[in-house]
């Protein structure tokens, strides 16, 4: 059994991380009552490192119902926070608590029989998650170069309440492009839309559409935590994303997929590692009979823009690669049938016409009979990044708030210009690939051999 270490940085990172552990325990408790899989419980989840530069969030965790899951050897905290300033997080706190972080991570790594992957959870808009989080990322690359780094980043929406969030995000993006193996971007706006959809369903009142409350993607019911707090619903979605991603590594199935296989199959070029994710189903209807049509509906939904975790529409852009992580009682024939069905409506890059990575895990999530997580390496991330860059430029042109950053030792104008250049070239690479979409591609001429 391979293990992963979850590194949660900043307020957002720690709150999402908390939800993740809560739901994970719920999932394993559910499986365990059936007495089937014992080893998965202990081995996978021992490993977390919690980092925050102010104590509020972490203290809450330690006093809450999850206090038995974590202990002080896994924490790195400080008192004053990063003031929503990437530079403070990256250039000040980064070096200051570097040794501390390395020590905690090493200790967690030693607990592992076989460490496969680091999951980093953070937000891009703030100071700690964004600045210190990306510093920790490059630190992990230095200290553990062979271990895969998968980052879940929460991107700020256009109406984010932190004014300098574009600066923080673009500065952090450069680090992600250089040092992460895979990034799963998530946008708050998409999460809100999904929640609205679920709540609309829940309150629609039609008798045939009664949904099982604990089965929704946003429900934390049955978990260790007690009452639900404000961002909980949104964080549950991200937590479910991580649970489904790791399901094949934790449970058995007829076609397993480990985490390093995700990076291998979905990242054709080193810098283009931003994956758009979508989760279905959002809820289970109380009616237990699941006709085959529902199964197919699940596949169709995964490609609709309402289910994506960022504001993007992969169906109308170019796919570089796509992974389908299926859980539950689904057979390979169902999978293939649906791929055949959906393929004509999707455009794949010319050299990867059958760019599908599939995985079947036999254990479904709690409250569902089956579920699907789709990860796409798709050029539809381009608009998201372009908008981010535009918001950045709006501030940067006016030199607004720059002095807060430049005050910090080690920060110069060059950091900003390099960061935006990196983002621009990333957008350019996606653009180039997208332009091949409508071209008629002929096969590359084959090698000739003497007959």
């Amino acid at each position, binding site marked *: 059994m391979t293990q992963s270490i979850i590194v949660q940085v900043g307020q957002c990172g720690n709150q999402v991380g908390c939800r993740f552990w809560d739901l994970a325990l719920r999932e394993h408790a559910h499986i365990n009552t059936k007495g089937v899989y014992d080893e998965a419980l202990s081995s996978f989840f021992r490993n977390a490192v919690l980092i925050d530069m102010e104590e509020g969030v972490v203290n809450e965790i330690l006093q809450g119902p999850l206090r038995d899951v974590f202990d002080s050897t896994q924490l790195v905290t400080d008192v004053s926070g990063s003031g929503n300033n990437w530079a403070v997080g990256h250039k000040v706190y980064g070096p200051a608590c570097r040794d501390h972080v390395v020590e905690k991570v090493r200790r967690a790594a030693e607990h592992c029989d076989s460490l496969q992957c680091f999951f980093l959870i953070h937000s891009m808009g703030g100071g700690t998650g964004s600045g210190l989080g990306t510093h920790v990322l490059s630190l992990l690359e230095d200290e553990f170069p062979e271990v895969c780094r998968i980052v879940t980043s929460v991107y700020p929406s256009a109406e984010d309440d932190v004014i300098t969030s574009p600066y923080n995000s673009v500065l952090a993006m450069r680090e992600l492009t250089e040092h992460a193996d895979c990034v799963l971007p998530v946008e708050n706006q998409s999460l809100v839309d999904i929640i609205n959809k679920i709540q609309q369903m829940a309150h629609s009142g039609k008798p045939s559409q009664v949904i099982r409350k604990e089965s929704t993607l946003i429900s934390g019911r049955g978990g260790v935590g007690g009452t639900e707090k404000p961002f909980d619903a949104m964080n549950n979605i991200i937590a479910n994303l991580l649970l489904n991603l790791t399901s094949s590594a934790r449970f058995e199935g007829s076609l*397993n997929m480990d985490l390093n296989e995700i990076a291998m199959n979905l990242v054709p070029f080193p810098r283009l590692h931003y994956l758009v994710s979508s989760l279905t189903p959002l809820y289970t209807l109380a009616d237990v009979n699941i006709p085959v049509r529902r199964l197919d509906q699940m596949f169709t939904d995964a490609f609709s823009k309402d289910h994506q975790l960022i504001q993007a529409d992969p169906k109308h852009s170019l796919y570089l690669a796509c992974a389908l992580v299926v859980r539950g009682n689904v057979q390979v024939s169902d999978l293939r049938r649906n791929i055949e069905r959906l393929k004509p409506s999707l455009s794949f890059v010319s050299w990867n016409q059958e760019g599908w990575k599939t995985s079947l895990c036999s254990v479904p999530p709690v409250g569902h009979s089956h579920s699907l997580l789709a990860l796409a390496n798709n050029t539809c991330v381009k608009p998201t990044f372009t908008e981010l860059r535009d918001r950045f430029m709006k501030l940067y042109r006016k030199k607004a708030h720059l002095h807060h950053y430049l005050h910090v030792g080690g920060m110069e104008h060059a950091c900003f210009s390099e960061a935006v250049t990196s983002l621009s070239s990333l957008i350019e690479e996606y653009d180039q690939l997208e332009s091949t979409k409508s071209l008629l591609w002929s096969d590359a001429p084959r090698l000739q051999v003497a007959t």
Partner: protein
Amino acid sequence: MSIVTVQLGQCGNQVGQELFSVLISDSLEAQRQCRGEPGRAYRDCSLERFFREHNEASYARAVLVDMEPKVITHAVATAAKSSTWKYEDGSYFCQKQGSGNNWANGFCVHGPRHEEAVSDLIRRQVERCDRLAGILTMMSVAGGTGSGMGTYITQCLRDSYPHSFILNQLTWPYGTGEVIVQNYNSVLTLSHLYQWSDAILVHENDTVHKICAKLMNIKHISFCDVNKIIAHQLGSMLQPADTVGTLGHYTRNPVGELLKNLVCHSEYKLLSLSTIPQMSSSSLAYSSFTWPGLLKHLRQMLVANARMEEGIDWQVRVPLNGQPALERMAEKTKQGFNKSLANVLILRGKDVSGADPEAFLHPGLYSSWLPAGTAFSTWRSPVPFNGYEKSATLVSNSQSLLKPLDNIVGKAWNMFASKAYVHQYTKFGISEEDFLDSFTALEQVISSYRHL
């Protein structure tokens, strides 16, 4: 003589476990199916070949290798549950870290790192055989462990057992993708295996899937169903048969005979399997077969390159001899005719001595540089196999794998031309040069088969 099986990766272990299930149930049934000496001899020969009897239990002569534990655990448990056979304790090697679908990781990292441990296990199994008939490796080409590490292990086996026969059973993935880099992994595996393996026996998931759908009438096909078909086909090839014509005396050297008949030239090592009939057990009860009928269908399956007995194109004919070489070739490819280098026909069941395979000796079926008499052999066994009263298996070294191979190389080449995913391989030690070498080697194989 005994065969040692090495099961590599998820696919290899899953199929391997099904194979041993089929073998033991068939062996134990043999006496009931065929009374007297032939049945008893069959059972003894088969058990000796694949199992080791110890303390009243049958232990498979197998080594299980995987880079993560789940599949092996499941295979061992399933075997133990059957109460007729099990895997030996300590015959498996397992790590915690997978290979990430990366051939380079399997071949350059895991292979050398675990070479000693795995070789040890294999050697122990080999030493337990009175005489080694050969080593069968089972793996897929799409993933990282089976393909990459499996290739490395094959190289080690070739070094350690230079005089033994090594037969690689490969499973090719669905064309529409199970793993995105499957074509790279396939190209690297095949090009390297060609140097060290004696013969490469191929099963394609697409083909077996069609058999499940059309012939077995399975509505929701799972990998388990696919694996059972592959196991059935392999079993029908590997179970005891008589190669010389004296029924009841089963050859002691099955792998050697197979290779002698089929692989006469090192450039042509790709083998494919067809069995007839294949149907669900419920339909079987209502069907009866005659040898002429079965053989006629099987022959046309060979000629028209159909992999199952439904949907055969009866329009494709064997070309007439005596036409100038170049013209002959063009006509053939237009017609879809499948030329063979060599074939082995294995007949099992009732009245098998009465079956007449004369039609398979037509010289037009074969390439010009081997006489039909040498290119074709028939093996027989009076014992019905796996519930089929009569069954015929054709092990063929022919052009049937040409098109799938060409497709795989074509797709991989397109991807390589864009340099996609190449960085994932270079970081473990497979360079662009290595890729080019592999492509060249396979283009050579394709060309050889095309001009057969």
